[in-house]
C-alpha cells in the first residue's frame, strides 16, 4: 500500500495525544504527505461527506458541527480508524497510518 506511511514512532503519538492540538501541528506528517491527505479528505472522504464536507450520504463534517457534538482529535481518530458499525463509514485504519488519521482529525476540527 503506497499510502501507508509511519513517520512518527508510536510512543510519540501517545505523547501527542496528551499534548493536544498545538503540539500535534508541529509533529504532523511531512508537507507532501499533508497534500496527499488533503486531497484524500477532499475527494475520497468527500465522496460520501461532500467535497466541501457539508454532508451527503454521510453526515456533515464542518468544524462547528463537530465541536457542537463534543468531538476531539481522539474521538474523531477513533471513528476514522475503526469506522462506524451499522453505517456506511468504513474503517480507515487498514489504509492510513495513525499519524495520518490524527492529522485528518485535527484538520476537521480546525475552522478554515
Amino acid at each position: 500500500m503506497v499510502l501507508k506511511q509511519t513517520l512518527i514512532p508510536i510512543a510519540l503519538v501517545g505523547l501527542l495525544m496528551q499534548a493536544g492540538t498545538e503540539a500535534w501541528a508541529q509533529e504532523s506528517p511531512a508537507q507532501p504527505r499533508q497534500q496527499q491527505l488533503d486531497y484524500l479528505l477532499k475527494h475520497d472522504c468527500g465522496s460520501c461527506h461532500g467535497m466541501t464536507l457539508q454532508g451527503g450520504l454521510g453526515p456533515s463534517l464542518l468544524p462547528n458541527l463537530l465541536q457542537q457534538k463534543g468531538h476531539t482529535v481522539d474521538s474523531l481518530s477513533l471513528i476514522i480508524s475503526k469506522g462506524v458499525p451499522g453505517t456506511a463509514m468504513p474503517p480507515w485504519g487498514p489504509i492510513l497510518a495513525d499519524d495520518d488519521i490524527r492529522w485528518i482529525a485535527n484538520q476537521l476540527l480546525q475552522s478554515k
Partner: protein
Amino acid sequence: MSKEYWLPTGDLGIVIERADGRVALVNTTDREKLAVIDGLGDLSHASAVFSRDERYAYIFGRDGGLTKIDLITRAIDRRVVQSGNSIGGAISQDGSLVAVSNYTPGGVQVFNSDTLERVLDLPAIGKDGKASKTVGLVDAPGNRFVFSLFDSGEIWLVDFSKGEPVVTKFEDIGKQPYDALITPDGRYYIAGLFGEDGLALLDLWHPEQGVKHILPNYGRGEQRMPVYKMPHLEGWAVAGNKAFIPAVGRHEVLVVDMNTWQELDRIPVHSQPVFVMASPDSRQIWVNFAFPENKHLQVIDAGSHKHLTHLQPGEGVLHMEFTPRGEAVWVSVRNKNEVHVYNTQNFEKLASLPVASPSGIFFTARAHRIGL
C-alpha cells in the same frame, strides 16, 4: 444575445470538472474539448441528463444546484438551488419534467424542464415518520419517476401520466438501498441494498405484485468488508438477458439471469467495483474500482465472463462513458486531470484531453435512452 455555436449536438457531451464547479463541453467525433462552462457550484458528486432535442444539459450538483446548460450558446440558460444537498436526477419520458433527489432535507423535487419552475415538492417521510435521504432516482415509461428511500427502506413510484402526480409507496423493501438501476427497456427497477444481502426488484409492468427480494444469499455476507466508495448502479450494466452488478464490499461482479432472477456467476475482479458498464453492443463489461485501487480498469467479455484486458490509466479512474455505438470509451482520470479515450476493439489509447479533476462523463445520446 449570447453567441451561438451551431454544431450538431449529437456529437457533443459534457465532462464534470468536479473541483471547480465547471463542465467541459466535448466533441466525441473529433475527440476535443470545445469549451468550459463555469459557475455550477459544488459538483463533487454531479450527474446530468439531456433534453430530448439534445440542446440542453441539466446538471445536478452536490449543493442542491440544478443548472440548465445550453450546448449551442455554451452558457448557463438558467439555474436554481433547489435543496441543501442533492444526489442525482432524471428527466421524464416526454421531456417536460426534471426531477431531483436529495439527501438534505431528503425527498424529491420536480421542475418544469423549460423554466425550472418547481411543480412538485415531495418530502420523503418514510414509514418511520422521519425524512429520508433519497437515492436511485430514475425515469420510467408512462411519465413516471422511481426512487428509493435510503433510511426507511422504501421504493416510491411517482406517476405524472394523468397530470397530477400519484405516489405509490412500497415499504419494507430491504435495509439501506444505496442506489438503483432501471433496465434499458424501462421494465425492472432494481435497488442495491447496503444494510443487508440481496437486491430489491420492482416489475414496473406489474407494480401491483409488489417488490421482490432477490439473490438473498448475495451481498456483503457474514464477514463484512469495509466499503471505501459506494458502488453505482446504472442501466448500462444490462447485457442481453444478463445483469452485471457490482458487489458491495467484495472483489466480484455478480451476474444475474434476468429471466429467472437467479445468480449465474460471480466474476472475480481486481478490487471493489464501483461502476460496472456494458458497452452499447452488450459484448464488453467495463469495471472501475473504489479507493485505494482506483487507478485500475478491467474489461470482461459479457459472453464468456473472461477477462479481456486490465488497464491502468492512472489514479482516480472515476467514470466511463461509451460513444453512442461503442467504438470508443471515454475514461475520467481525476488525479492526472485527463480524460482518456480508448479503442474498444484493441484497447489502445486514441486520445487524451486535458480536463481539470474530471468525474462524470455524459454524452448527448443519453437523451434517447430510458433511465439515463
